[in-house]
Every structure is written in structure tokens, then in C-alpha cells.
């Protein structure tokens, strides 16, 4: 551990070698965060089965410090969107995302969550969760094997390693705005597109007239 955190530019007196480590706050902060990522128990579809397999004894996510699955978004750092995102489900997913405290990360696991997958053309399918919430890591596969999921989580750790307290948004003075929750109307409605919908539909009516 000490080797991993050590900043080689600052010498440590010989008598304190192995006892004292001089490092940057960023490194310490990122190391502690990335070594205890709490994912949310959040299974959508087939990919959730492989997620459970990844957490069970054979593949054992615990080796990488991310095995504490929490059932509530309030205690989670990572949302693994494991499966097809349907229109009926997306308001709940966005609500869960809003309920997670910062810093929070999202992983799109599998083809469906990344871009719709085999069901993309379906009338009740959202073509990728990134249409609504920001995604940090995409894991391809249908479903991705547990190895692929673990690789994706390691990529997320690498991403966390790059962050700095100075620039991360959750320490800024500006409040982070919640994502507006989609509405289930005649079809799925993204409130951010409300005026565009009215405009397009009015044009369609005029064209008909």
C-alpha cells in the first residue's frame, strides 16, 4: 500500500522509511474511494445474472474492493445498469440516480444499456441509458462475462485515479442539478424536450392541414 501511494519526489528520512509515507491528498483520496466502491443491488435483466456470478465465489469481486452491494441508492457509489432499459422503467432509474449521493458513477453493462442492443427497435425500449443519465464506463457483451464486468470496474478505478479534488464537480460551490424525471405519457416524455415536442407536433399538424 505504501508503495502505491508514495510520491517519489519527496524524500523520507531513512529512519522513517516504511513508517511514514508522503503523498498528495488527491492520491490518498482517490485510493480510498476506488478501493471501496459500493455498487447498488440493481438488476434489470440478463446481465444481472452475470453480475451476481461476478460477485459470487468463483469470480469474487471482493478481491478488488467492490463487493459491498447496497440495496439503497443513498449508500451507493456506483449504479451498474445491468440490462435492457425500458420506457416503463426509466423514470425509476433516473429517480434512483438522483437519489445517489455524490460522487456517483454509472456503468452501462451490456449491449442493451449501452445502446439498445438486440431489442433496440422495440416500442418499449430506450436505446441506451446514456440518453438520460451520464455514463462513465461501457461494458460490451450480451451479456458481458464476469471477467468483462470486472475489467470494466477496473477501468472505473483507473478513471477515479485521474480525478482531482480541485476540479471534481461535487466540491464546487454550484449545486448539482437533479436530472428531470421522465414522464410516462402517450410515449416516454423527456421533460427537457417539452418545448421541442410541442413544436414538432404542431408542425406535423400544420403539414397535415
Amino acid at each position, binding site marked *: 500500500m505504501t508503495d502505491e501511494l508514495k510520491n517519489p519526489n519527496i524524500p523520507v528520512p531513512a529512519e522513517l522509511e516504511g513508517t511514514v509515507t508522503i503523498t498528495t491528498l488527491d492520491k490518498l483520496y482517490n485510493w480510498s474511494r476506488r478501493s471501496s466502491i459500493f455498487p447498488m443491488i440493481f438488476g434489470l*435483466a440478463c446481465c444481472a445474472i452475470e453480475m*451476481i456470478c461476478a460477485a459470487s465465489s468463483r469470480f469474487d469481486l471482493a478481491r478488488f474492493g467492490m463487493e459491498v452491494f447496497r440495496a439503497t441508492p443513498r449508500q451507493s457509489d456506483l449504479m451498474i445498469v445491468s440490462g435492457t432499459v*425500458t*420506457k416503463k*422503467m426509466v423514470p425509476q432509474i433516473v429517480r434512483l440516480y438522483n437519489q445517489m449521493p455524490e460522487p456517483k458513477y454509472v456503468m452501462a453493462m451490456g449491449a442493451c444499456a449501452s445502446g*439498445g442492443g438486440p431489442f433496440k427497435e422495440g416500442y*418499449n425500449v430506450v*436505446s441506451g441509458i446514456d440518453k438520460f443519465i451520464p455514463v462513465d464506463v461501457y461494458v460490451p457483451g450480451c451479456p458481458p462475462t464476469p471477467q468483462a464486468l470486472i475489467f470494466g470496474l477496473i477501468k472505473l478505478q483507473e478513471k477515479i485515479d485521474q480525478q482531482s479534488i480541485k476540479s471534481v464537480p461535487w466540491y464546487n460551490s454550484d449545486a448539482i442539478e437533479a436530472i428531470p424525471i421522465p414522464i410516462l405519457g*402517450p410515449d416516454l*416524455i423527456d421533460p427537457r424536450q417539452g418545448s421541442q415536442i410541442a413544436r414538432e407536433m404542431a408542425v406535423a399538424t400544420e403539414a397535415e392541414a
Partner: protein
Amino acid sequence: MAAPATPNTETEVLSLEEKFAGIASPDTREGYEGYIIAADKAEEVVKYIRDDLGYDYLSSVTGVDYLEDDHMEVVYHAFKTEGGPALNFKIQTDRENPRVPSITHLYPAAEFQEREAYDMYGILFDGHPDLRRILMWDDFEGWPMRKDWKEAYYEAETKPFKNRWPGGDVYRIEANNPFNKNVVYPEGFNLNGYNPLGDKTLYDMLNQYDRGGSNLKTDQIVVNIGPQHPSTHGVFRMVVRLDGENVNALKPVFGYLHRNHEKIGERNTWLMNMPYTDRLDYLTSMCNNHAYALTVEKMMGLEVPERADYIRVLMNELTRIASHLWATGFLLNDLGAFQTPMLYLIKNRELILDFFEATSGTRMMCNYSRFGGVAYDLPDTLRDENTMDWLHEMIHERLPRGLEELERFLSNNEIVRTRAIGLSPVTAQEAIALGMSGPMLRAAGVPYDVRRAEPYGIYDRFDFDIPVGTTGDVYDRYLVRVNEIRESIKILKQCLRDMPAKGDIMSVKPGYTHKVPAGEAYGRGENPKGELGFYCVSKGKGHPYRYHIRAPSFINLTGLEKLCVGTKIADVVVVLGSIDIVLGEVDR
């Protein structure tokens, strides 16, 4: 609850066309079978079918839209629990004002399936107790499975799309949509002042129930369990009305994983649907492939080579073991033995997945059956061992050892017994009436197994027993699953012994397109969860005209309310775990 009548043995039972001349007429369209029943006399005829002809088990109800003939049809498949083929009957209705009498009071199993036909086709079922949308939400506009309804990403009526194949011109379909999303709105739609119904009809329905119970004036609260809840095995939602801890009404809410299998399936070619069937019940892809292949083989009149049949049985039974291990592990999880039993059982399941991966190339989504055989032969080696030796060791030693361990720790475990015995029992009559299948039905004491009742493939060659329960409670469901693992191992041993060492695995030349003769077929297989059926209609083209899935997990849930009312809130989780649902199949 409707009791199944004993067939009338004293007087000779008249067949349907003799008894109801002019009301029930045989379906004479080419490739079709069964009867077409006049809508106004349907109740009488269906009652006769159930009580006098003895078809006590209603398996499947679905709609079909015949656009060019300008009518819609509701197709029913009923079986006898003693075994034998289906009786298939249909009620026709016009497309403008589709109305059909509901048969839920005769066959409670029809409740959710009629709601689904209403949701997908807009067919109104007169007399249905709770006719709401089931898979889509209430405010949704349109009847998506109608042939003239087009989704937002609609490109062409059937695949492969001419603009992509064989040229390979790939583009993002999002670019065709003004919102860059998979959505379409009615003309003039404006979000300002729009007020969706939301869950209003659901809560209205829930509050209609009799408050029941004691004379004490108590507060009742409504609790939503799900769709994001660790105990619901996926994105399933139960709305429960509680009096203290007692459940006095429960409504399941579906559709959070409705992925439009059927609509996509009717655009796909026949073979393209094979990988989609993997994603129905994603724990049992091999069995799903088999059931779908059976249906299409039935229509095409294909034979399957002997070795391929043995390989299919091998895969089916291994899948059954894997699925039951998973179900048992999660049932224990729901009972409160958090994680530990599950980890042990998943360990054994991984063995089976390794074999699937070596054979089909993937752990879960095997896509292994083909029309007329299987896609690949078994590999020669697995983990540097001869495959047959490896299989032999797994089937004769490792799996029985795992089963013995499971039994030793769980079956007589006092906590499991105290918690599960007597919880939510169901009688044989109720189970049949509610259309339960698989371990749910057998736990209630009905020895009904499609492998015996209407043997498919080569299942008639094997010697195995059908485990049954007595009371149909949670413990019986658990025991039936454990005993089915034992029977599957028995079948597997015979299968390994008798399998021809060499031989064809396909009876026809493999191809991408298939011409299926016009007509209809209902094919079914005994999945680990119950009877998986496919109802397909062909117009002689390269793609199905109608592709319906009779999903066992979905129909087993018809009885959920009955099973849960009167129990405690903590038991609802256990009862749901004991039904063993997979959401990919429930919502399709």
C-alpha cells in the same frame, strides 16, 4: 374457484361439432386445426369443453390480428391434466370494435393473458374483473401488436432490411427521429397542462377490495415493493395493501422489462428468433431454444437425428439442474439465509455453465438449437480432458455430491422447515384452475409434466419419476425442485449411457432462411419453470406472421394474489421466491 369436473363417463360425450352444430365449427383454413366458436355462445361451449370434454387446464390465450382478412382472433389452447394433445379453439371478432366474452370465471388462468391480449390488440373482454393494460402503462397510446401499428424506429415490415443487407450500409436509426430517441407522439401533443393518469386505475382497483378481517377499525397502508427491490428477482413490482403486517390485497405490476419480443419476432426471420428466445428466461436458454425449435420443426415436418436429440436432452436436463440450483439458492436468500447457500449452489451451476461455454461458445445465451438439430457437436476436450470423461465425472460424482450437500444442510434444517411448511398452500384444483405449471403445479399434487403428458423429442425413452408434493406450500415447492434435480441426474446418466458416439447433428443442410408452410402450431416443452409454449402462425413466408410465447413464469403469477393474501408482509418475499420467476420471461 372453479373445480375441475369429473368427465362424464356414463353417457357418451358428444364431440364439439355434434353438440354445438353451427356454433362450434372446425377450422378449415389450410394448416389450421381446432374449432371456431361463435362469440355470443362462447360461454356455454367453453363450459362444455371444461366440464364434459375434460379439458381442465387452460394453457394459453392470445390474440392474432389478421389484417388482410379484416378480423381479429383470440386463440385458446386447453389441455387435459391426464395428458394428451391440446384442444384449440378460437373466437373471432372484427377489428373496429373488437369484443369477446371473458372466460376468466371458467378458467381463472385466463386473467392475465386476456389482459395481455387487451393491452397488445385492444380486444375488450366483456366480464373481465380487472381489464387494464398489463405490460404497457395506462397512458400509452396505441395497440402495439396490431399489424398496422408502427413503432418509432420502424424501418421495414420484415428483416433483413434491404438497405443494410447484403450491402452493409449501417447508420444510426436515431438520426431519423426528430427527438433522437425511440419515441413518437400524437399530433398536436403538448406537455403543458398534460396530466397523465399514472397509477390511478391501479390504486382504484386495489381499494375496491373488501376490507375483511376483524371488526376493529384499523389503518390500512399501501406499500409498493419494487420495481427496484432486492427481493423481487428483477424489476417486478407488487403493490400490497397492509393491515398491520397482514396482507389483505396485492396487485402485481408487470412490464418493467417488456422488451417487445413478439413484435420484434414478427419482423425477424424464423431463425433470427432463436437468439431472442435465449433472452426470455435467461437462466434456461437451452430449454427455450429447444421448445422454439420443436414448434418450427412441427410446422416444417422436420425430423431430428438421434444424436442431436440426445444432445438436446443432455442440455435440457443440465439446464434444469442449473435453474433449480439458482432458484433454491435465491429462495434461501429470501428466507433469510443471506448469500451462503446461494454461493454454494452457484458454484455447482458454474460447472454446468463451463460445459455450455465449451459447447456453444457462451455461458448463458447459448443459441444452440437449430431447426432439424443442433448448431455444433460436443467438443472433443474440455479443460484438457476428454469431454465425455469430464461429463461422466460431473454427472456421476460432482452433481450428486452437490445435491447430497444441499439436502443435508437444507431439507431437514429446522429453520427452513418452520418457516416454509404450511406457508401459502394451494390445492390441486386451485393450481390447475390458476394455470400454474412446472414445480408449482406438481407441488400441489398434480403429476403433470409435459415430458410425460405429451412426450417430445426422445423423452419417452427415459426412465424417470415425476416428483409431486402434497400441500403445495413453499416447502413442497422447494422439495419438488430438489427431487427434480435428482430425477434429472437420473435422466442424464441414461442419456450418457445411450448416446450414440458418432452421428449427424443436423437432418437438413444448415441455412439462414426457412420457408415454413402456411398454418399454425403450438409447440411446448417442460422448462424448469413450467410449460413454455410457442404459438406460431405462418403465411408461408420467411418470417412468422404471429409469434406468441406462453411464458410459464408469467402465468404462474396469476395465482400470486391468492397465494399472498392472508400471509404476512415478510412472507410475500418468500412466496415470490418459491414461484421462481425470471423477469425476462414474465414481461417478454
